[in-house]
């Protein structure tokens, strides 16, 4: 994962968002939930949470090394890229469900076979590589 995904902020101009995305606290706070919890509806082939509760303090100290995101240690940025990757696809999938009037809670309560059918439909529709997810 080289560069992560741009997670948009609602209500702000594109120019503003790009500028803000350079700032550590803003970039990371957009995905902090995805770093610390397995929040996604999608089951990625990535060990989650990306940062455990025990390691959070250490991670936080590293994020405070620079106000500019690009100047952070590479391994810290890698974690953020992964979280952005997860959130990007999670949000896409949630929108796909919403467009079909399926709420996340409803999706979770469906049987695994039905969940898989919905998932695969979404993936084929968006030409997403099935190997990124734990699909049997």
């Amino acid at each position, binding site marked *: 994962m080289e560069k992560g995904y741009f997670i948009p902020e609602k209500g702000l101009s594109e120019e*503003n968002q790009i*500028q803000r995305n350079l700032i550590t606290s803003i970039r990371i706070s957009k995905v902090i939930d995805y770093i610390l919890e397995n929040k996604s509806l999608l089951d990625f082939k990535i060990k989650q949470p990306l940062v455990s509760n025990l390691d959070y303090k250490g991670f936080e100290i590293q994020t*405070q090394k620079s106000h500019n995101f690009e100047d952070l240690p590479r391994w810290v940025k890698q974690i953020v890229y992964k979280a952005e990757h997860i959130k990007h696809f999670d949000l896409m999938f949630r929108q796909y469900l919403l467009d079909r009037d399926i709420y996340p809670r409803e999706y979770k309560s469906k049987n695994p076979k039905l969940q898989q059918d919905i998932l695969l439909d979404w993936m084929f529709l968006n030409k997403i590589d099935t190997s990124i997810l734990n699909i049997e």
Partner: protein
Amino acid sequence: MNNEIKIALIKAKTLRDSLSGKEPDQELMKALQIGQTKVVNGVTYVVKMTPNGTLDWRVLKPTKKSGKKKNLKKIEDLFDTADFPDLSDLKEVSSLGGSTGAKLVEDTKTGKKYVMKQGNSKEHVEEEFMANAIYKLFDVKVPNMKLYKGDVESTVLSDYIPNTVPANEIMDEQLRDDIADNYILDCLLSNWDVYKNDNILIDTDTGDFIRVDNGGALRYSAQGRPKGEDFSEEVEEIDTMALHNPFMAEGLTDAKMKKQIKQILLKGENIISIIEDDDLKKKMYARLMDLKEFVTDEPKDPYRQLKERDLKRALRRAGHVMNTNNKQGWIFLSEICKMRGFDGTPEMLPSKEFDKQLKQEGALLLNRGLTGSYGKTAKDYMKEFTESEDCFYGTQAMYGAGIYAAVNAAKKNPPPPNDDYAIALDYAGFEKNHILDILVTPDTRIVDADELDRMMNEEFFGEEFKEKKDEYDKINDVYNELKNQKERIEDEIDFNVKKDLGWNEKSFNVLNRAKPEEVYADTEKFSFQKPLRFYTKLIESLNGTVQKIDKTTYEIKLPNTAKTFWLSPEIAERSLKQKNANTNPYNYHYKRLKEFIKENHYNLIRGKVADEIEKRRRDDPKMVGINDKMKEAQSKIKDLADEIEKIKTTGSSTVNEVMAEIIKRPGGTHRGFYAAIKGYDMIVNKRGWGTNTDFAVILNRSKVKVREFK
């Protein structure tokens, strides 16, 4: 032991404890009933529910003999049932459906129609009758009715109202507000379903709106199932019914609800007096005491210890600790801060006065940079912080939920240049006028973020955990710094090898993004010269060569490999392919060239980087040293992690529902929630941004002062 003797012993023991200043055992107290008395040395003591929700003995104050009797209504006087028939005179007309099978019946003697209910059980229907009686006490319209109590089953007969329409079918804001005039009473009675379906009807003859089906009130659901702990001693319904009926709750203000509560409390005694069931009586008393908490006029200490019920109330209103909305930001945090009065507006000071107060020892200057969004400008947000009734606490933060600002250590804005101010300027999109200057007075309750984390660990998991976690964090820090050192060395190797071998980042991006094999696929449309020019430019940027060997062949060489690629227009002409109808056609020859470049230049360089790094890891004493120390640190980390897990499972802290949510992620956003619960005005993180700037997380907006701005 005989029950009477048992009760007498319990009374004696608990009263003795109470008189000697000890809190009586609540388990024992539960065996007694509110209102029970005991005389000791000529003084009468009575069992009462205290404001804290516990049972205790209090001196029974003699009632003043005013000569007037208290005008308490009796249950039999609430309904006009003189003309109600015997059940034997009724014949069934039709079924009315509903959760427990109500029937339309007719008095065979008079022809008058009634609705007959027997509920799911005797207790259920009697409870429904009690709910209606309490509504009647407050002149809230319910059908006129009579309870026919039986040994095995009971029956409620109520006047049939023929010409009605469900309120929900014609609901508008006016009707909603009228119905919501008794919102608190509906909550007190735990009448969960009152606003649903056709449980409120409008009598089209009189215009009255009538709560006709109250079978889901008090201790039973509409289907007759006991609610159990869901009908609790706290009137949680004030929050939950608002959540489930947002339209009804829209018109409710705190002032309206307080007024309704006061009206209910005035008749509190009457409510208790008409209830026969002891358990219900006790619960209702506790619920009335809970309502009283809302309207107490005593000024509350903003830094008081919040009770468990306060935290639960805040959580109920938020739904989940992490829920946010556009008005409050983190709702849970906002509710906690509201309870403390932290959401008040800050004092605005003219510039001179601001600077004067800033000179005080212990005062801090904060700079908060703002940006416009959602159609609001930065200035709008500045005004919101200083003027709006609702304090917006934010929706995104990683160091603690709350309102962020940079601590200006110099206590002065530029000039001269100031790194702390520069951070705020960045957040303000480099607009100086979009920075709020905030004064923190010396008496502000500030907590250091690290200290706060230690407090959380100690509270949630105990002293031993806190010490182990400290140790873990120190070693983890060491490990992370070693990782950084290792990365810096590897980055240097990466840079040097790539420089030596001619890595070109711009060409790399072009190679990845451009699709010459698709763009120039059709050789009839695009002459060979176009892809040739494209690839020549790319290859020359990598210090490679493109040499024309003859009319139809070009030899392509790259600097780091002996391999050659032969580019030919004749081959290209034969190379048009298409996987299937859904994919774009492409030129296989051009695609192979692209892959040749990737493989024999970029991937080759990557391989060299990896080899060099691997070599240095083996042979460079510095790298070897770092790796060894990392292994050692990792091993210690693992051992400590195992120890910590054991301590967590055998930890001694008792946590309530709210803290259990916060424990799930001690630190980060939740730090703000914890600090507010503990009554801190502000968190300051000394490490802050970059290496020098501390940052503050403001929780108590009313405590700070703001420099006037235009």
